[in-house]
């Protein structure tokens, strides 16, 4: 026992101190390694942030966007690509499929909130616009338009409304896996700009 004690006294530093120094060095190396490894995954271009967006080509309008967003009214809204639209009178996104009469009575409208407005342009064309304050992203008109029309109505996440959660609660339940993270350049996936 006595010999042991002498050895400790003769050592350049106490054992506890030695362990402390070693663990400090390991932790420091760990910080460097972790930081360095993660830094290689950073891409230093303008797309610093990523945004959630719906791919309109994949979307099947299951209607979950309306109810699954963390916002009281979903950040998903319908967007109308006028350049794709056929300006039809008999619009699949405007009238219900079983509409008895083609007039603007509420029972004939597909939009539950009356957010689609139409304006007569010239015979036989009508211009359709979306009142974004009324739209709740249910996608009923989108379904109608892509079934019977050109698919000019489509759902998009409005980036000025989206909270950009780290984990999008709509993306989790999206039936078609259409919601993904996109870089700044394609923050909206427009139909008329392609």
């Amino acid at each position: 026992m006595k010999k042991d004690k002498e050895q400790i006294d003769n050592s350049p530093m106490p054992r506890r101190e030695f362990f402390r120094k070693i663990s400090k060095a390991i932790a420091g190396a760990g910080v460097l390694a972790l930081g360095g490894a993660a830094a290689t995954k950073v891409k230093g271009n303008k797309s610093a942030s990523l945004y959630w967006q719906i791919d309109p080509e994949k979307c099947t309008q299951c209607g979950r966007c309306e109810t699954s967003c963390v916002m009281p009214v979903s950040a998903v809204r319908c967007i109308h690509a006028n350049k794709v639209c056929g300006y039809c009178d008999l619009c699949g996104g405007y009238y219900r499929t079983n509409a008895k009469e083609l007039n603007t009575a509420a029972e004939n409208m597909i939009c539950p909130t009356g957010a689609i407005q139409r304006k007569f342009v010239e015979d036989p064309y009508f211009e359709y616009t979306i009142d974004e304050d009324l739209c709740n992203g249910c996608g009923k008109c989108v379904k109608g338009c892509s079934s019977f029309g050109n698919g000019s109505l489509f759902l998009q996440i409005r980036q000025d409304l989206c909270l950009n959660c780290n984990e999008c609660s709509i993306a989790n339940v999206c039936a078609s896996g259409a919601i993904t993270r996109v870089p700044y350049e394609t923050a909206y996936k427009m139909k008329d700009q392609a």
Partner: protein
Amino acid sequence: MKKFLNSLVLLLAGWKAAAISRFPRPDFESGYQYPEYTYAVPNEMLWDIIDVAMLLILMGIVTWALYKKRTRGPILWSSVVSVAYFGFFRGGCVCSVGSIQNVALAFVDNSYSLPLAVFLFFMIPILGAFLFGRVFCSGVCPLGALQDLVNVKNYRINKAVAGALSVIPWIYLAFALLYALTRTRFIICQFDPFIGIFRLGGDIGMIAFGVILLVMSVFTGRPFCRFLCPYGALLSIFSSVSVFKIGITPKPCINCELCHNSCPVDAIEAPYGNKVNESNRTGVKRLLAYMLIIPVLMAAGGLLMRQAAPQLARANREVRLYSQVMYFEDHPDGEMIPEVEAFYSQGRTLEDLISSYEEVHKDFRLYGTLAGMLIGLVIGVKLVRLSLKRGRKQYEIAHSRCVACGKCFSYCPQNRVKAKVN
């Protein structure tokens, strides 16, 4: 005539091929102009810079208050600012706690580029912990700050119970990494109890859980940080060996126990009065036995999680879709759920789905095994630490648990004495 034509096309139009232009673009004669719409993208770049600057400033203030001023005042104000800014104003995203998953995802998913701000939010608190201890937890993390601000009384939790509960953050971390690495989901964000409170809305279950945690934190310090937070677990590694260490007082300790009673997270340990009389050899033997148990625990954890991998994988979208499609293939007369409908309308083949299903399962087996080993390792290390012999002569801070709230400073009588003590 046009109307008739339209309805004819309407009849012919099928359900598939939504992108095909069924109606030609009209040629307007009245000089109609297409309306122009622009959809705004908020200036996230600017907000990212402000966020990182706020993180640095608040961490700087806390460090200054801890090391230079030895007072809690600025930390309290930093907490208020953090809850107001990071919490209520910025809605709690992205936070350092959740950034673990982004970093993990970036390692496995090459299509995902880690945003710089997320990287900084991940690394700065770790660097801070390595240099100064958990200054981030103290008054910068909005989740911790919120619990700290409502804390009134400190009822002590039984040491054994607290010790057992302190394994949970590690298990949570292992699962969060598992689900991020398999590209399944970000469970830390999904089950964040306070985000609903910050956003004044959200999942009712999680808000209720958050309220319960807040009520608990009135009576005992930071239950979320101590028994749930996976980032705190990560920081505790670095803070326990940090370069600079927080001291209760620069003056000699008089063993009055006041600081021990003031600590909300039970991170001040009492002097160890060698209660158990055992020979040096027995202690060493026990320690060696525990060291040998660690590999066994790791193997057991790895095996267990590997066995559970198919069940765990059911959270993954592809695996869920596979079982849904398979169910539909077996029952073609049944109702088509939206997922299955989307699967067929996207024109994906069954072989494609099966291969991605197997890919996910492979990932889950690999990362599940690793996560299980991590859990085993943590439990083993906790056991070893319990049996380490301590030679404390005075009250000392356990730096891995200390969240640097600075409450002990004003309790220490030595800090109150103005006259110089020799």
